[in-house]
């Protein structure tokens, strides 16, 4: 008895590869058919083109060959393509990729999962493909949008740095995986909301609101971290001051100040612990975007803004919300940076991935149980 070619007890790896390849090819064709994909691609080229239009030499800076009245800005100040690197990091990555391009990507992929939950899914589900695998493959194909966009951006930026700045920085391509990871946090939320509500608009709105929520959590965590660090430094500085004082009368005033600061420190600690705990649970978009800058600094010698070594710390003005008469703002900043540097990449990406996985597991659970 001859068996049908497609007779299977279990699917093989080759079977799975065929289906995955077909889904990716279909996703590519879908992107190709979307105007927004090409609009975003054109905007990518425009952003990098605008950066390429900026020229710098020993005399000064120019845009499309027209000199700007900024005589101090020249290759002495920004040698070896430093200006282009700075603009690519600040505008290209920090503003374009981390914000506008991400919003465009969310808009462009918004209908992907509502479509999966409404039209055409019957024909797909009647094929030998598990729902969990189908959903996760679809999710991966959604990331293709960002991957292609960022790859184009990175390639053009690479050319600009090489041609205009004379620095061929292959390390700039590190931006591709990191921005895909960054986008995947928000895309996971959008995908599952789209699957459940079957509404592209609702999925975009919820994803954007979620983004705002995690930004606020990040802002709250950073603010309370500043408060907590400030209190710690203030207490240490006052105690140091007390030791230098001779009279008990003089000391008593500062002792009272220390006691008051200790009570504040406890409050700051509690508030920061709450924010930090919440932040641990949700994706860390700001810190992931910061990882891009950090990675560019290491791998492509881009970014890594350092304070001027000649900066006179004592002369530096007190500024910001947290002001002290016992230590300067730079010390607070240094302490915060030290604290932040202790947060490893695995914590930033790992906990964010954990959240993403939980969201996707909920999505898979829902998709597997749904009747169509």
């Amino acid at each position, binding site marked *: *008895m*001859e068996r049908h070619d497609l007779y299977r007890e279990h699917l093989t790896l080759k079977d799975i590869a065929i289906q995955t390849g077909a889904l990716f090819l279909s996703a590519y*064709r879908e992107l190709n058919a979307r105007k927004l994909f090409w609009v975003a691609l054109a905007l990518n080229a425009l952003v990098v083109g605008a950066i390429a239009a900026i020229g710098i030499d020993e005399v000064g800076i120019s845009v499309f060959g027209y000199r700007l009245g900024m005589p101090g800005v020249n290759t002495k100040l920004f040698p070896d393509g430093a200006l282009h690197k700075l603009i690519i990091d600040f505008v290209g990555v920090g503003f374009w990729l981390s914000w506008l391009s991400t919003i465009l990507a969310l808009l462009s992929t918004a209908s992907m999962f509502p479509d999966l939950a409404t*039209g055409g899914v019957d024909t797909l589900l009647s094929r030998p*493909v598990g729902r969990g695998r189908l959903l996760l493959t679809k999710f991966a194909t959604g990331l293709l949008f960002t991957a292609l966009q960022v790859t184009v951006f990175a390639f053009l930026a690479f050319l600009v740095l090489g041609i205009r700045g004379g620095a061929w920085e292959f390390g700039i391509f590190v931006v591709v995986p990191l921005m895909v990871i960054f986008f995947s946090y928000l895309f996971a939320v959008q995908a599952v909301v789209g699957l459940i509500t079957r509404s592209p608009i609702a999925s975009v709105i919820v994803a954007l609101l979620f983004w705002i929520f995690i930004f606020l959590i990040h802002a709250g965590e950073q603010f309370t971290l500043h408060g907590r660090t400030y209190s710690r430094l203030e207490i240490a500085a006052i105690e140091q001051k007390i030791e230098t004082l001779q009279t008990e009368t003089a000391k008593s005033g500062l002792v009272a100040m220390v006691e008051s600061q200790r009570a504040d420190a406890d409050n700051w600690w509690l508030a920061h612990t709450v924010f930090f705990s919440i932040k641990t649970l949700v994706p860390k978009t700001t810190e992931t975007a910061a990882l891009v800058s950090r990675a560019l600094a290491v791998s492509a010698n881009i970014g890594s803004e350092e304070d001027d070594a000649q900066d006179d710390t004592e002369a530096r003005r007190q500024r910001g919300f947290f002001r002290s008469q016992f230590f300067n703002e730079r010390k607070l900043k240094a302490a915060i940076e030290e604290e932040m540097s202790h947060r490893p990449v695995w914590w930033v990406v790992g906990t964010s991935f954990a959240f993403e996985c939980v969201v996707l597991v909920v999505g898979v659970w829902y998709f597997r149980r749904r009747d169509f």
Partner: protein
Amino acid sequence: MVAHAVLPSPHAHSSSQGLAIDLVDVTKTYAGRVHALQGVSMQVRRGEIFGLLGPNGAGKSTLVKIMTTIVRATTANGTVLGAPVGHRPTLARVGYLPEHHRFPQYLTGRQCVEFFGAMSLMRRAARRTRAAEMLEVVGMSAWADRRVGTYSKGMQQRTGLAAALVNDPELVILDEPTDGVDPVGRREIRDVLLAMREQGRTVFLNSHLLGEVEQLSDRVAIMLKGKVVRQGSTSELTHESRMWRVIIDRAAPAWASEFGVVSLLADDGRTPLADGRVVIEFKSDAVERVQELIDRLRAERIAILGVREARESLEDLFMRLVRDVDGRAKAVGAERPAGGR
């Protein structure tokens, strides 16, 4: 379409013995209270065209979707192509055309058929060849490289049929395959289905079109309120309605009422018979009973002008099942609890 000539069958479907579908006590309850299927048992033999009939809401599509894993059954025993219901790898040997299907609008017809071939595990060379063949079979070759978004409803339906057949399925499940197709296209699709049967494939046809099902199907099942109320060949189902009409040239003798109803109306039930003719009509499965009546009429020298056998059509049977005696439609959809939506 060139069904007979081009519909290839690279595989000898020699495993066509036994049952392609054997469902036992399939139930589906939505939200714990809407009973869409209430213990459906159904057997479809390999190599036959099987028609599933039923009014809207009877549970036909739910049953089809359970077989294709689109809907999860509350309880389901039985097999599809010898594998338990819901066994996903077996779906590689099943072709399915859903009712209201929507293909990706950005794909061309050819890309679409090849995509579903790939999703059914076909290797690249095989699916390319087979997709081209199937598009030819359904008469879509000329439009194969245009986007599905530009297709008419009928063209989409033909492309859907090609996608359902691309994996050379042993079992083809078609939900309203001629929906939106013009009469010529319907005829062509019918020819494709008949060609599939000739090749030993099993066709499961879910359709509202009673004539279509009656014309094509070897056996049918009728569903009402989530249950199979009749199942068998058309002749088996209409067997009980076998009726005899014996026409005589004068008033019927008194004893004729023992056999059945004496009528003065023609076959259409409206037109009076001419020249004093009378009809004695009665339901009976036994030919001997007719013979007995003829013998008694001849013994009384009554001229017999005609003897006709009549049966209900599938449509008559269907309408009888879904309507009450007074002609009003019965509640035929899924059962909901009292006070429910």
